[in-house]
């Protein structure tokens, strides 16, 4: 199979702070170089985009010397933590901005979906917006005409075709927008987390459509997401980015393992401090999700803890879990012994325990975890305060696309409800 995209040594520099070099003469020099198509004489190369370290120049390389090849018909995921350069790479690939260095060669038409509904005009009707949006995304009028019924059918908005989109519900709006994009005629489709919109049913439909696009129609798909479930479902291969550089390209499962490991730093492994001088204690604890160590937790599913404990004698123990929000305020308590009679007889010495907890739908942001080893209702052996922490990154309310974050001060847990007029 032939190569659809070939990227060679692409780098992208961003200037921090002010956009001028500070003096007019340098500005003019830079401008003159720019006009002649030369590179900027005031860019320094080779600094990695590590936000935790304060660099000594104002320039940040959000992409640093990235090369890759993507075969025709492959679905490739691009994953990485926030700030790894995913969005910049997408922007460069979709020609929204140009690379500072390097080149990308492409075979076939590229359509990119960095956002659904770009260019939708609220005053225009659904029908008019289908044409306008399609044309913005690079389709010819007759191509849209040909796909028109399919688009309307996929979006399920037939009744509202001649209504201005400003009167659409947000769900309908998003469905229509995605439908246009999903029916683009192109050989290469670039998609940025747009699947995180719409209700669950529609998300499944979108994911299915994307699968069809790559598997059934033999088109190349580049998919950027934080949702590892969607990535592994859709992509055979992944590219993992870290601090602007490519650290891995290959098999999806291995890539996801690597991605999960990247989240780890020293705080994510809890270790007992000998100065507490306890008889029985939790020696080490790690947080896992879907079998991988992580501190970026997928929302609304379950998390596991793996505990190494040390006991000075044979004991009956149970475990408790307290979840705290970003301000260290307790929000969830799960005493496995008191509430669910999960008591274990433990022999003297070292043991390994696995705990798992179903977590409700949480607001995005940071959470801290207390782990407690106790004899249910009698005594506490060890209470590890703020032993571990994790971040909830993805959070979209199902129907509206509204994002629930802790920073809003409306609590941290989302519960389902209903309302009706009596």
């Amino acid at each position, binding site marked *: 199979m032939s190569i659809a995209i070939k990227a060679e040594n692409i780098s992208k520099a961003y200037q921090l702070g002010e956009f001028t070099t500070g003096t007019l003469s340098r500005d003019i020099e830079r401008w003159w170089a720019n006009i002649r198509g030369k590179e900027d004489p005031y860019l320094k190369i080779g600094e990695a985009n590590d936000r935790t370290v304060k660099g000594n120049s104002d320039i940040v390389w959000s992409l640093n010397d990235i090369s890759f090849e993507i075969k025709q018909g492959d679905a490739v995921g691009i994953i990485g933590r926030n700030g790894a350069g995913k969005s910049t790479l997408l922007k460069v690939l979709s020609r929204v901005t140009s690379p500072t260095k390097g080149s990308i060669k492409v*075979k076939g038409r590229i359509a990119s979906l960095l*956002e659904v509904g770009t260019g939708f005009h609220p005053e225009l009707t659904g029908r008019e917006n289908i044409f306008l949006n399609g044309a913005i995304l690079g389709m010819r009028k007759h191509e849209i005409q040909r796909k028109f019924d399919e688009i309307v059918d996929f979006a399920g908005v037939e009744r509202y075709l001649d209504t201005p989109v400003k009167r659409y519900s947000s769900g309908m709006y998003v469905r229509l927008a995605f439908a246009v994009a999903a029916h683009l005629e192109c050989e290469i489709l670039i998609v940025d987390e747009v699947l995180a919109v719409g209700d669950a049913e529609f998300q499944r439909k979108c994911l299915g459509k994307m699968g069809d696009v790559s598997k059934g129609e033999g088109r190349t798909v580049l998919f950027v997401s934080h949702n590892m479930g969607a990535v592994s479902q859709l992509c055979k291969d992944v590219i993992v980015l870290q601090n602007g550089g490519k650290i891995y390209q290959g098999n999806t499962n291995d890539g996801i393992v690597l991605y999960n490991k990247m989240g780890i730093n020293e705080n994510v492994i809890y270790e007992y401090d000998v100065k507490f001088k306890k008889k029985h204690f939790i020696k080490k604890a790690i947080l896992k999700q879907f079998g991988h160590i992580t501190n970026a937790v997928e929302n609304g599913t379950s998390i596991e803890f793996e505990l190494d404990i040390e006991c000075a004698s044979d004991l009956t123990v149970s475990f408790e879990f307290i979840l705290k929000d970003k301000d260290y305020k307790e929000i969830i308590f799960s005493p496995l012994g008191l509430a669910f009679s999960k008591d274990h007889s433990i022999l003297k010495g070292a043991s390994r325990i696995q705990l798992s907890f179903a977590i409700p739908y949480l607001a995005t942001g940071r959470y801290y975890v207390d782990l407690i080893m106790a004899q249910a209702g009698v005594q506490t052996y060890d209470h590890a305060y703020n032993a571990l922490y994790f971040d909830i990154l993805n959070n979209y309310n199902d129907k509206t696309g509204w994002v629930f974050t802790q920073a809003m001060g409306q609590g941290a847990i989302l519960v389902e409800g209903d309302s009706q007029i009596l």
Partner: protein
Amino acid sequence: MNDSYNISEWDLEIKPHDSLLNLHLNDVWNYRDLLGLLVRRDFVSFYKQTIFGPIWFFIQPIFTTLIFTIIFNKLANISTGDVPAPLFYLSGTIAWNYFADCLNKTSTVFRDNANIFGKVYFPRLIMPLSIVVSNLVKFGVQFLLFFLLMFYYNVIEGIRVMPNIFILLFPVIIILMALLGLGVGLIITALTTKYRDLTFLVTFGVQLLMYATPVIYPLAAAPKKYQLIISCNPLSGLIETFRYGFTNKGEFFSSAFIFSVVTSIVLFLFGLVVFNRVEKDFVDTV
């Protein structure tokens, strides 16, 4: 599989910089349907939820003409030569507005569309072009008004205002005005991605420029020593010729016209090059 690829095998190459004169005009051509749809959008959204709808296109020039006639002709006694004052002002106003709207709207095109430009690629030039075409349509509609007024003076008032051979230059004048507005607008929008203050300069600069253009007075009526200065404004030659062609009153300033032609084309080409240079990564600075 063969490792070496022919350049021609690739449909697209994304690079930091292109040569200065590679303007991607074939790309613009491929997106011609978008141009049409954008123009359509401008019109449909213009009169949706308004009472008078498209009538607004007429209200503005009618009132401007009315005010100009009262202020400049009746109060300030500025002669309009042999042309009836309303006809004179109307022709000046619609032509001037056409140019000014092209310039004003193109000069903020990067800022107005930063949102779309930041999310999807299409040849950026499509946006300013759609602005010019939208204004051209508006000009065409307003031009009907001018015809009605000509008809009124010829048939009802009995004042003979007839076109002469220079009317043939009309399409050329329309294109040149568009090129001029577009060219200057493109240069300004390219600069405003970095230096915002230019926008303020444009808004009142265009207002003032009107007084240095024979919109409210005929060039021939200006004192000789100012005529040269006014002719340095490339619009002067265009508006004078436009009026002369339709009314056969006044005179044809050939040197002013030739000067206008050359400046318009040069400014347009320069604007195109500058715009093309900036469009590739303006998203990072705007």
